């Protein structure tokens, strides 16, 4: 198992926002974590990365490479963060530093984890931008985020996340902030990269068609608990839990009829 989450709880005050979540990700898995806003899916992701805001208590175990990530010291956690496990954030508008050229931001990751010098990291950043299909990557790497479109920014985020060839990519609502046409492009890209690089994917979304497009397995989260899990197609065709059924019923018919095409 690449990553094992056992009885994860995130407690804010007395309220458990994530309440006993357990799941496993094997290498090459593409796992979807479905749930509405406030169901605790983003907190789950942040807890895995050790990035929860102050004032939240985390319990349970997150096993990766024989270590419990929740108990690792900051230094050893930093060796994993962004290197072995990386994350794509929801808002490509705010997840990039507005006063830093995008190439430099990608290069920063390489310089931290790969100890590359400035030039090598810069060249590698351009190479990564090529891999995420940004046209004219050389000059685009010298652009500031506001000079790029939403889709391009998300491509830059994906390039950053893949910079060190991680084992696991956590994508938190990677397409929510984008236009539908751009969404499709980003999803195709993610799909291709995950296949090519053999990266495992934890895709967090409230968008069922997105999960249907990419993921092989899915978890449904509701009020901090996982209410249903299983292969994506089974989940869509024979939902067991009433909440899952409601979610699927809430999808427009034409989406449902398209079903799990892939």
């Amino acid at each position, binding site marked *: 198992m690449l990553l094992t989450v056992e009885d994860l709880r995130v407690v804010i005050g007395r309220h458990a926002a994530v309440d006993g979540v357990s799941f496993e990700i094997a290498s090459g898995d593409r796992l979807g974590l479905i749930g509405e806003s406030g169901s605790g899916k983003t907190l789950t992701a942040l807890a895995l*990365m050790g*990035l929860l805001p*102050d004032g939240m208590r985390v319990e349970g175990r997150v096993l990766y490479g024989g270590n419990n990530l929740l108990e690792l010291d900051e230094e050893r*956690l*930093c*060796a994993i*963060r*962004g*290197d072995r496990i*990386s*994350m794509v*954030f*929801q*808002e490509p508008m*705010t*997840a*990039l*530093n*507005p*006063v*830093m050229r995008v190439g430099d931001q990608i290069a*920063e*990751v390489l310089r*931290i*984890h790969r100890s590359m010098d400035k030039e090598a990291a810069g060249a590698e950043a351009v190479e990564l931008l090529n891999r995420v*299909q*940004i*046209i*004219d990557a050389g000059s685009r790497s010298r*652009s*500031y985020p*506001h*000079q*790029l*479109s*939403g*889709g*391009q920014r998300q*491509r830059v*985020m994906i390039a*950053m996340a893949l910079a060190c060839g991680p084992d696991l990519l956590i994508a938190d609502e990677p397409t929510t902030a984008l236009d539908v*046409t*751009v969404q*499709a*492009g980003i999803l*195709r890209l993610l799909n291709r990269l995950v296949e090519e690089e053999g990266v495992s994917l934890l895709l967090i979304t409230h968008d069922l068609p997105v999960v249907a497009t990419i993921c092989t397995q899915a978890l449904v989260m509701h009020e901090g608990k996982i209410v249903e899990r299983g292969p994506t197609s089974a989940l869509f065709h024979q939902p067991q839990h009433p909440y899952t059924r409601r979610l699927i019923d809430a999808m427009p018919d034409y989406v449902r009829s398209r079903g799990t095409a892939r």
Partner: protein
Amino acid sequence: MSDVAIVEQIESEAPSAGLPSRRTLLLGALLVLLIIVVALVSFVWTPHDPTLVSLQDRLAGPGSSFLLGTDQYGRDLVSQMMVGSRTTLFVGIIAVAIAICVGVPLGAVAAVRRGWLDEVIMRLADVVFAFPAVLMAILLAAGFGGGTVTAMTAIGISYVPVFARVTRGASLQILEREFVLAARAYAVGPVKNFVRHVLPNISHVLIVQGTIAFALAILAEAALSYLGLGTQPPTPSWGRMLREAQTYISLAPRLAIWPGLAIAVSVLGFSLLGDGLRDALDPKFAERGKGPR
């Protein structure tokens, strides 16, 4: 290359016709440069000895021997103002440097750490803020004696809270943004994260604050010199010249006008420079600044 990616590419080509308008920056830089050049020239050459008292030339009008005339002791006004620019620059730079070097790290620590440390730093800042620069200078002068160094240290210390607050406030806003979290997710350490990701995003605020503080420091130095706590005679300072001119304001108004003008021009120069720098440093402002204004 997918068609979607091409559409994205086209969308991102924002219109950016026209030349960048950097008149503000240019004018500010020019004025500041003028003062710096005058200060540097004063080290090697002044028309007359700025401290030479010559009673037969007292209150001489502008003319061929004294370009702007002389003061009540017969000292050449131009020479005094040239040497005075050194004091002005020196005091302004050191005072602002003290304020930034102490205030910015304090504000940064308060914003990043929050909690009791934030509380302690900000309450201490409030205490210091309650002391006007003049009172601070009197306190320091009691201990170390009056002088230019006392004056600029006092001015510097009295601006520390301003920089601490501005830094804290602006940083809190930036620290909320997702890219700071993203940087943490890529294992950027806390100090590096602040320096690389937060500081550049608040630098425009600090630069503007810095130029305002510089302008105020020039004025504060003038006030302190008047009280005898700042630059000591006979070292010329624009502030002291202005105050000394008070007595002769009806007899020789030019004695007040020229140093006053010099102060106004330098304050204006630094303000314009600050404004221009902010626009030039912020890539978004730089983009918008293009085209007709």
